């Protein structure tokens, strides 16, 4: 199963924890919301999901890699 990074900006409060601790610097806070700025660098480690206090970012299992 492949994984896909999903963001629900409506739940994001812009704390910046996900962006700061992303090991590949995939995320950035733009206008107080999380934004995926380097999607190709994402290694799907899931650390953002683990530390997002607002459940606004997560990995979703998908049948095939897009």
């Amino acid at each position, binding site marked *: 199963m492949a994984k896909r990074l*999903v963001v*629900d900006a*409506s*739940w994001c*409060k*812009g*704390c*910046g*924890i996900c962006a*700061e*601790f992303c090991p590949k610097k995939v995320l950035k806070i733009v206008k107080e919301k999380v934004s995926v700025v380097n999607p190709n660098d994402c290694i799907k480690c899931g650390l953002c*999901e*683990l*530390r*997002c*206090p*607002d*459940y*606004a970012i*997560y*990995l*979703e299992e998908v049948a095939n890699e897009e």
Partner: protein
Amino acid sequence: MASELIMKYMREEHLPHIWCPGCGHGILMRDVAQAVKNLGIDQEKVCLVSGIGCASRAAGYMDFQTMHTTHGRAIAFATGVKMARPDLEVIVIAGDGDVAAIGGNHLIHAARRNIGITVIVFNNDIYGMTGGQYSPTTPTGEFGTTAPYGNIDRPFDIAVLAAAAGASYVAKGTAYHAQQTIKLIEDGLRHKGFSLIDCAGICATYYGRKNKKGSAVDMMKYQRDNTITFEQAKTMSREERSGKFILGKLVEDDFPEFSDEYQKIIDRLKEAKK
């Protein structure tokens, strides 16, 4: 939409929660959901009890059998639930003020009895909901709205307190170390007797601002860079230990569990009556 984990174990209609941006409680609440999922515990057999405070809002957000009770009394209510229904997995989520000040007596006696409930403390060292008053875990010298010149009290270490009172499983986690904390909560849930996991949270809004600790990100970095084990803590002086977070298990022991012992009395008396 949220992840499968959140959709299954949280009441989505109450989300996003009202905790502040960067609040460690959101991370810790997810840890609890993940631990329950990892153990494959039947969601309907979990009773989550909370008292009053920021942390206690978890009982509203999490989709288990839940009780949102009075300030400090979550453990007392949980004791009643466990005695009536020993088959349930009874979890208490409480803040540091709720569990160690208002409910301090319930905490020590539940630990002493070794009743089979799991207490997960969301410990942010301050009363957040009521506006940043110092709590029993606020370190000496730190500031709160009720300690404008610095706190002169010495703080409780809730884990050490529970251990001294006789808890049979005691551990400490942090918001930053989510993976390890999930594991520690799992072990606490699996443990038969009274378990307590004291989790260091992050309150950037009150504790952080009052004490010039920076943003939630800065406080997370501080946790990352200043977390030690119980073994390391033993070799350090009091000065070296101050300001450090501890990650790991303090106690894991096997004592008779209270509801089991109570059932034995019932069985014995029934047997004698025959």
